[in-house]
């Protein structure tokens, strides 16, 4: 211990630090990838989701027609060379509508979950970290929110705000908040007792910084896994609400809304419900598989390869 290395030039050290950071990060990704692959269906699920994301991003390039353009000369055409997925009752191209619908469905799920995360996680973390009376009051309010059946709560909100895609997203986000709040609170309660949080106090780390840098990263894994699952559930719920006429309004190519208008023609033109229905099923299925891989990759108990 007597041979303490002399201090090197700061610039030299910083340059080295940046190089090392790259390798460390790549290393972490490699471990994540190896774990992720352990769930055999996670990769197909992830690819399925990725495909939908790409379709949504490049919808104008993929769609063969304008999804909103009526063509009354070609109504209820079965799938064929001109319209691969056929046309609906107003002669609109179903393929193009399903393609553009991916944008709506993905944003329904993602925006609702992001809003719920942004509200629910801070609520839960603060309740768990502060504890005592604050915790009691916050969690009782959350319990009240949880007492409503999800779809009923959404319907109540929409009946106040009026039916629209954005209000559906708000409603879905609102009833997802308690899920994240309770999850974040529980995880915070256990992390709070860890010696490294005590060490933060002994180091004079301010509370907000402790929460942001030390508590949040340590509770992120379970929250991310549940968030991926909630994206799937939110898409289903939002589509259901649109199907009931509470969400996206015609002529919007929302999948749930397409199902609703297509069901009138189910006997003579089944492709009107098959393709949007299939899209919902595949996207939700893919998200669930992906979520399972994420769970295994992020669960410290399964990361024995480390």
């Amino acid at each position, binding site marked *: *211990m007597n041979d303490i290395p002399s*201090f090197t030039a700061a610039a030299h050290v910083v340059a080295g630090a940046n190089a090392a950071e790259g390798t*460390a990060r790549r290393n972490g990704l490699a471990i994540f990838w190896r774990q992720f692959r352990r769930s055999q269906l996670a990769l197909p699920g992830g690819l399925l989701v990725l495909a939908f994301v790409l379709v949504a991003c490049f919808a104008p390039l993929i769609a063969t027609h304008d999804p909103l353009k009526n063509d009354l000369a070609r109504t209820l055409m079965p799938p064929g060379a001109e319209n691969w997925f056929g046309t609906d009752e107003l002669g609109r191209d179903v393929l193009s509508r399903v393609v553009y619908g991916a944008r709506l469905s993905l944003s329904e799920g993602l925006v609702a979950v992001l809003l719920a995360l942004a509200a629910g996680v801070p609520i839960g973390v603060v309740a768990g970290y502060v504890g005592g009376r604050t915790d009691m009051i916050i969690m009782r309010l959350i319990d009240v929110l949880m007492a409503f059946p999800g779809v009923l709560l959404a319907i109540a909100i929409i009946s106040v705000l009026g039916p629209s895609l954005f209000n559906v997203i708000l409603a879905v986000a609102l009833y997802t908040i308690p899920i994240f709040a309770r999850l974040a609170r529980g995880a915070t309660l256990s992390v709070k007792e860890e*010696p*490294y949080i*005590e060490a933060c106090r*002994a*180091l004079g780390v301010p509370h907000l910084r402790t929460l942001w840098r030390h508590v949040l990263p*340590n509770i992120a894994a379970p929250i991310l896994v549940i968030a991926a699952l909630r994206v799937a559930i939110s898409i289903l719920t939002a589509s259901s609400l649109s199907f009931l006429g509470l969400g996206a309004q015609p002529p919007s190519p929302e999948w749930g809304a397409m199902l609703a208008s297509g069901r009138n023609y189910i006997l003579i033109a089944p492709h009107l419900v098959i393709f949007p229905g299939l899209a919902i099923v595949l996207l939700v299925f893919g998200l669930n598989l992906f979520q399972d891989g994420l769970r295994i990759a992020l669960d410290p108990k399964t990361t024995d390869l480390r």
Partner: protein
Amino acid sequence: MAVHADPSASELPVSPLLDVSRLVVEIDTLQGPVRPVDGVDLRIEAGEIFGVVGESGCGKSLTALSILGLLPRPQGRIRSGSIRFEDQDLARLDERDLRRIRGNRIAMIFQEPMTSLNPVLGIGDQVAEALVIHRGLSRRDALAQAIHLLERVGIADARHRAHDFPHRLSGGMRQRVMIAMAMACRPKLLIADEPTTALDVTIQAQVLDLMDDLKAEDGVAVLLITHNFGIVAERAARVAVMYGGVVVEEASTEQLFEQPRHPYTHGLLAAVPQLGRRRDGMRPHPLSEIPGMVPNLARPAPGCAFADRCALRVEACLRERPPLAAVAPGHRVRCHVTGVSAQ
């Protein structure tokens, strides 16, 4: 046993770096409030290693936690007494002022190196944390300094290891990282609560050597809390023995080991196991133990806390708590029998 000179002896009589006086800590329990620390006095000079020894539950860790205002809340509090440090009474500071001192003027390292580091943050960033908070450095500058600090505490290839997560490090390495974190802002006082208890013996020696080096280079005073008399004998200049929430004996290490006065100190020293034969060829003494149990905090006795277990007990011990009285320069004992008769 090393001979340590008192660093303040040749200088002007200055007030000590840390002066804990009549500190009483109260903790609420289901049986009502208890006082695990009941009138502790400690004086630590700048740049010395000061050992605090005692068995589990004697109040040594709570004393350390109360110095930094880290008592468990809301059930724990400083009931009375003062903790003077650099012209401030830490017992009276609010949370905001204490936070400026923690990790900056006074740092602390804990017993559990395996769990005292954040598992999802690189060790460099964790060492840099104190610099960002107390020195206002940018993350990049703080990280560069953190790498120096990691080198100083003997982490090989610190530039690369700074990006490792704690799970890649052994227990001894993690304790080195903890020390680097604690030393980042060059504190005046380092509180080390059982810093080597979780480590094996060779690593213990290395970590203690490191603390010795830091003391010599930075002039940091170390409050070394331990139940290991061997560590105290080797490293500390002065020692306080705690029992039942009070300091029962305080002396230079030499005085304490050569002329222990308090019956409890005698008992503790006799209970240290010895290996092999003695120098005079005799077999070692059989290991002795102190009869009885630690006192029940919920029902404190009016007299000396050690009276129940003490072979030298007189009638006054049960009635009245003895004062911490000087028996020699720098040697104070809290005992009716051995503390008074010597003078």
